[in-house]
């Protein structure tokens, strides 16, 4: 029962991602699984020039996407360098504030996460537009209208709050007498900060940096306003989706998912290795101390079946099934793609021919018996229409 529940939950969670990932390998112009055209990597590479001459960019050839990624990386780096120190400073201040003021300070500090991102984005633009206006021509006016700069500031507003929370959590477990001990041993306040506090906070600094970067990288609602005429990855994707989805986006999604999984797995492996090393050093120490070989016994771990075995089996079964189907029906490789394109092209030509054979008359094109231009575009061309209107101030 429990198993079924978990399966449904995971299917709900990861189903769309898996489907989307599969569509990245279908050569069709629209992301789809079931008419399966051909298995191909084209959406990761060049994309295709469609039979009607339109270029459908693949992941590697899409310069707008590349520019967006670069901006996103720059913004992410900027946000990390600003948010982490700000969050850290704010959290350290919290440890120094006493009594009732503390609650007020805390509430104010976490408020930015409660604001809608849209508002943060817009207000940043409004403020800096004014500042840029004051500065006349020159540096101030340049950066005040620089989308990347504004986005860094706007995102930092609320991302530094997440960093703040991470540091607060770590500082809560900090033993303040360590600072006092360092002071007592002759350290200055600066030395206490760099030799005691920063080393203690370093895990929090790392996680705050990662979190800040991820939040920045995936942010849309603040960025879409503050980015002005520039583009980040998220705004590029959003604008692409507006024009219709392309399998290149599936390819991008899959790449991002893969990178995330690789990063997570690497992190986990490194962490376990460090943990193991720590455990070993501890064990060595205990043995040394005990000088007694009762605990020097070697334990041989038996092979254990991993818990996720059903899920893995399921994935393997489906993948094998899919792969055999593709191979059996010869749905892969350049020849398949060429054949599919040829078929589409001929269909297209057929349609063109039908269109040409049903040629419209001039009269039909000019609006029929009613005559004249029937659209309303002309309405603003009429000089008398707004005569009585006071006009725009």
């Amino acid at each position, binding site marked *: 029962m429990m198993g079924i529940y978990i399966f449904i939950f995971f299917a709900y969670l990861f189903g769309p991602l898996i489907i989307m990932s599969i569509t990245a390998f279908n050569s069709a112009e629209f992301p789809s699984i079931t008419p399966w055209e051909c298995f191909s990597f084209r959406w990761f590479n060049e994309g295709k020039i469609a039979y009607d001459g339109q270029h459908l960019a693949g992941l590697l050839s899409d310069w707008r996407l590349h520019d967006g990624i670069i901006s996103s990386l720059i913004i992410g780096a900027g946000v990390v360098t600003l948010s982490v120190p700000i969050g850290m400073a704010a959290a350290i201040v919290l440890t120094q504030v006493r009594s009732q003021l503390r609650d007020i300070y805390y509430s104010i500090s976490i408020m930015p996460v409660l604001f809608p991102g849209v508002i943060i984005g817009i207000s940043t633009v409004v403020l800096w537009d004014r500042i840029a206006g004051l500065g006349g021509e020159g540096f101030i006016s340049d950066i005040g209208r620089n989308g990347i700069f504004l986005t860094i500031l706007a995102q930092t507003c609320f991302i530094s709050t997440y960093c703040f929370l991470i540091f607060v959590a770590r500082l809560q477990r900090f*033993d303040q*007498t*360590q600072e*006092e*001990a*360092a*002071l*007592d*041993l*002759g*350290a*200055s306040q600066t*030395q206490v900060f760099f*030799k*005691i506090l920063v*080393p*203690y906070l370093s895990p929090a600094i790392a996680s705050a940096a990662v979190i800040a970067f991820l939040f920045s990288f995936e942010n849309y609602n603040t960025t879409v306003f503050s980015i002005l005429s520039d583009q980040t990855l998220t705004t590029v994707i959003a604008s692409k989706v507006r024009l219709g989805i392309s399998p290149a986006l599936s390819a991008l999604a899959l790449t991002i998912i893969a990178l995330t999984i690789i990063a997570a797995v690497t992190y986990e492996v490194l962490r376990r290795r460090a943990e193991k090393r720590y455990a070993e*050093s*501890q064990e060595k*120490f205990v043995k040394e*101390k005990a000088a007694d070989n009762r605990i020097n016994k070697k334990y041989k771990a038996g092979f254990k079946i991993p818990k996720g075995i059903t899920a893995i089996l399921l994935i393997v079964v489906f993948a094998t099934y899919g792969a055999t189907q593709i191979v059996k029906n010869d749905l892969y490789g350049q020849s398949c793609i060429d054949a599919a394109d040829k078929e589409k092209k001929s269909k297209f030509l057929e349609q063109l021919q039908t269109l040409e054979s049903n040629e419209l008359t001039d009269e039909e094109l000019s609006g029929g018996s009613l005559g004249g231009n029937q659209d309303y575009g002309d309405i603003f061309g009429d000089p008398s229409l707004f005569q009585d209107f006071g006009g725009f101030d």
Partner: protein
Amino acid sequence: MSADVELSDVSVTFGSFYAAKNVNVKVNGGEFFSFLGPSGCGKTTLLRAISGFQEPSEGKVLIDNKDMSGIGPNKRPTALIFQNLALFPLMSVSENIAFSLEVRGVSKEERKKRADELLELIALEGQGEKKVHQLSGGQKQRVAIARALAVEPKVLLLDEPLSALDLKLRQRMRTELREIQKRVNITFIYITHDQGEALTMSDRIAVMNEGELEQIGKCDEVYNNPLTPFVATFVGENNPLYGKVTGIEGDKAQIETADGQYLAMMNDSKKLNIGDESIAFVRPESLFIPRDGDSFDNKIDVNIESFEFEGNLKNFYARLQSGAKIKFSVPNAIDTSSISSGSSIALGFDSSKSVILPKASLAID
């Protein structure tokens, strides 16, 4: 190098609460001096005032006759060993010990040399590379001492450093601390709520209660000649006998209690008058079961209630006729087979081993 430490009229307040009140004491250079008092009496507060973490609300702290007000903890010639040790968990043992040198910009080789010297002093040679969490409780203790000594302080302040250790280790560390103090020959100011610890290690002790000093003196002086009922009952055990003064002759006074009259020594500092409410104190080990030829100037009839074997001592709990409880101890070597619970016996004690003091509250109620 050691230094005198003088507290002159020091008070520390938190709001309207006095954590320390009008403390006057002079600790001599090279002395092992202890502040003894129950939990919450303001010992840590006093120590923080000496080390510079807490400015006194009133009064002055003088180290080597220099007024320390306005001088921060990192500028005072003191080193503090914290109640929880406060070793740096991310550093190795050597790094911990050499921290004070590092912040002073001492070169790496020099630091290593000094750390090795100190490791030898605390008998942890070759363990400098270990992390703090790999040390046992007693070893951590010694590392904390070495770290404090690395600054070459003139005064070492220790805040109940042994309280987290088990009994055996605590006893061993007492001797070690005392030895280290003799070797480095600096002033040790030691804080504890354990009177055994204070008595065995210190040259002099100061007994504190609710922020005030009750008595300062050599250990035996404080033990044998307490000045207040609090000191009498906090330092060692004491049986109180409540009554009124009925006669005074020389340095002795006669006290009339519900169970009879006793003679006890008077402390000249606190004069008693006839008719004053007072308490005579007699320690469990000063109450004797009279044998042939013994003569005591005080006799007391008790009814034995229970008995407890402590090893070197046998403790008897008894009641007087008035119902007051009394405890007496007999060395294990003495045969007490004739005494059983329920039996009534007469005990004797010498007036010179008993102290009479004006009535005031005790340490244990």
